């Protein structure tokens, strides 16, 4: 694994992967959203509002999956002290926060016509809001120290403490009586969803997942290069100092 975490190897592999991920993301998102918006059936109860699902569900999945990725990078950072894991964690934070904000915003836009309210202090909504604040806290904390390494360590500890929110989000609809509906898709059971709705949802979810990966890889590539630039400039400056 360390071989692939080498920055040179990372730049080479990610440089080859990103164009494929980006192209796949564009195609799958386009298919999923056009299918979901124009060709999938309306829900018998919710009507056309169900079409918001093709944005909301991928955003919700990536809010949690992105945080799990952040936690994995934090473990790698704390145990192996690998700088690439630090850079990846820093770059996942804003993207994860963006997708969590998208999840909350589309949830509000779905909730208003269905529940009559933009927001309710429901267990699922509140736990996702906590996840958003965890992302914001991580973004702020890693940038709060003069020594970046101290920021990475503090951010990694915060990210690992925050992992406790992920099972709360997942099981909140089972543990408490919530206005938010229970899960319709699980890894273990058959989906409780009409197949004509399931396919566009799978396309858009896979497309957004590829987009998330492409964005994070591209941002991490930029961070690796920027760090190299800073190192070169510091080396030049110290070489030019008299004495």
């Amino acid at each position, binding site marked *: 694994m360390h071989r692939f975490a080498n920055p040179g190897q990372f730049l080479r592999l990610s440089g080859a992967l990103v164009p494929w991920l*980006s192209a796949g993301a564009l195609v799958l998102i386009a298919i999923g959203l056009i299918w979901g918006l124009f060709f999938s059936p309306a829900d018998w109860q919710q009507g056309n509002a169900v079409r918001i699902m093709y944005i909301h569900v991928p955003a919700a999945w990536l809010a949690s999956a992105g945080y799990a990725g952040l936690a994995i990078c934090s473990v790698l950072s704390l145990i192996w002290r690998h700088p690439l894991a630090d850079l990846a964690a820093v770059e996942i934070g804003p993207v994860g926060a963006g997708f969590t904000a998208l999840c909350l915003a589309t949830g509000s836009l779905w909730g208003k016509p269905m529940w009559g309210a933009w927001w309710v202090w429901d267990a699922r909504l509140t736990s996702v809001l906590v996840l958003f604040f965890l992302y914001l806290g991580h973004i702020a904390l890693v940038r709060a120290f003069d020594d970046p390494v101290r920021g990475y360590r503090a951010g990694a500890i915060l990210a690992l403490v925050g992992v406790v929110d992920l099972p709360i989000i997942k099981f909140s609809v089972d543990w408490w009586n919530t206005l938010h509906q229970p899960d319709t898709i699980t890894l273990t059971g058959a989906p409780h969803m009409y197949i004509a709705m399931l396919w566009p949802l799978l396309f858009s979810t896979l497309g957004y997942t590829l987009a998330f990966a492409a964005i994070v890889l591209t941002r991490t590539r*930029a961070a690796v*290069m920027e760090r190299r630039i*800073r190192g070169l400039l510091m080396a030049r400056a110290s070489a030019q100092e008299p004495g």
Partner: protein
Amino acid sequence: MDLLPYIAASYALGILIPGVFAVTAFLRVGAARRRLAAIDPRANRASAGTRTRLGGSQ
């Protein structure tokens, strides 16, 4: 159709937010690549996949 504004706003955000992240990420990596190539000739090889170190000061 009174649901149209909610659906349109959701799809607009669903395209806009990931789109902004994608465009800024690609602009940022392009700028970093150009700057690195300007100050370090080896960066051309590095971005093509040959060896590089994470920080020059390390």
